[in-house]
């Protein structure tokens, strides 16, 4: 404690301007971390490419007014394993770290198709996990008819996030030719590299303040 003017609010000695500034910045850090329910700032080992990020954010832009208390997560496919038909047989992995407190009400998978599409084949999306790797025991989440080249947004059911206990979400993508055009799937090229990295958009409600409190009888 030092002699001199005292803080009119709390009666403690007044801080020097530099000390006050440092204190305010430290308070700002604490306030943000607490608000985001983090213990420390995240250390990001693999940040997304700026171009990929910008593209994904543009996809998020909507004419609708954003709702409050909404949490929106964009997760980029971390690794892509191809099997049998490299053109359109892929396993996409997403690493989620944001806990979902309430069921999601919007899940969309964004995929980029190269402009070599002949016909309008469809893509089947299966839930893919360790316990589901046995052929014939996989859960079909959705099937979409691809109508446009370039970016396509595929809506997935909320059960797509059911196997995220470990935080890792895997989808297996399989192309199916359109009836009467068996060669279409071979021409369908799913673009997963560079600026066309697939991404997942998940929207959910934020946990209400005091939501953890027990209900009073």
């Amino acid at each position, binding site marked *: 404690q030092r002699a001199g003017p005292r803080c009119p609010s709390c009666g403690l000695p007044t801080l020097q301007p530099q000390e006050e500034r440092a204190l*305010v910045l430290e308070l700002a850090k604490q306030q943000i971390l607490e608000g985001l329910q983090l213990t420390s700032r995240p250390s990001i080992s693999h940040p997304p490419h700026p171009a990929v990020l910008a593209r994904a954010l543009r996809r998020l832009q909507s004419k609708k007014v954003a709702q409050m208390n909404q949490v929106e997560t*964009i997760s980029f496919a971390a690794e892509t394993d191809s099997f049998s038909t490299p053109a359109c047989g892929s396993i996409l992995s997403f690493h989620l770290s944001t806990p979902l407190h309430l069921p999601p009400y919007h899940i969309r998978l964004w995929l980029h198709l190269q402009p070599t599409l002949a016909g309008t084949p469809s893509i089947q999306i299966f839930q893919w996990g360790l316990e589901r790797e046995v052929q014939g025991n996989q859960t079909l989440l959705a099937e979409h008819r691809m109508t446009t080249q370039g970016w396509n947004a595929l809506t997935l059911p909320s059960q797509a996030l059911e196997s995220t206990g470990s935080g890792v979400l895997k989808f297996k993508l399989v192309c199916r030719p359109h009836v009467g055009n068996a060669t279409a799937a071979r021409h369908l090229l799913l673009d997963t590299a560079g600026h066309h990295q697939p991404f997942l958009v998940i929207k959910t409600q934020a946990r209400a303040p005091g939501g953890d409190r027990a209900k009073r009888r």
Partner: protein
Amino acid sequence: TPTCEPGSLLCCKRDHYVDFHELGWQDWILQPEGYQLNYCSGQCPPHLAGSPGITASFHSAVFNLLKANSPWPSGPSCCVPTARRPLSLLYLDQNGNVVKTDVPDMVVEACGCS
């Protein structure tokens, strides 16, 4: 309560902008570039602390009148936030996912005496 003027002694809202570059957090908080970290400071003398409109709540007004008329000494009133609003943040989490969320009660909009 009004925003503090230079030399304000009574309870008021002190505007303060924090730039995320100053925190060294611009690499993971994408938007906004900073935010208004306002805070409350100033004196809450008994005559002010008991005034409707200055107090943080009706309960505070009654309680401060009680304190002002009590023969026993009691603690002073504090200048505290009475209205806050949320802040939308767009940030990268540890897996490189982009998260957009609204953090409640981040920006102080008004102050009053407790």
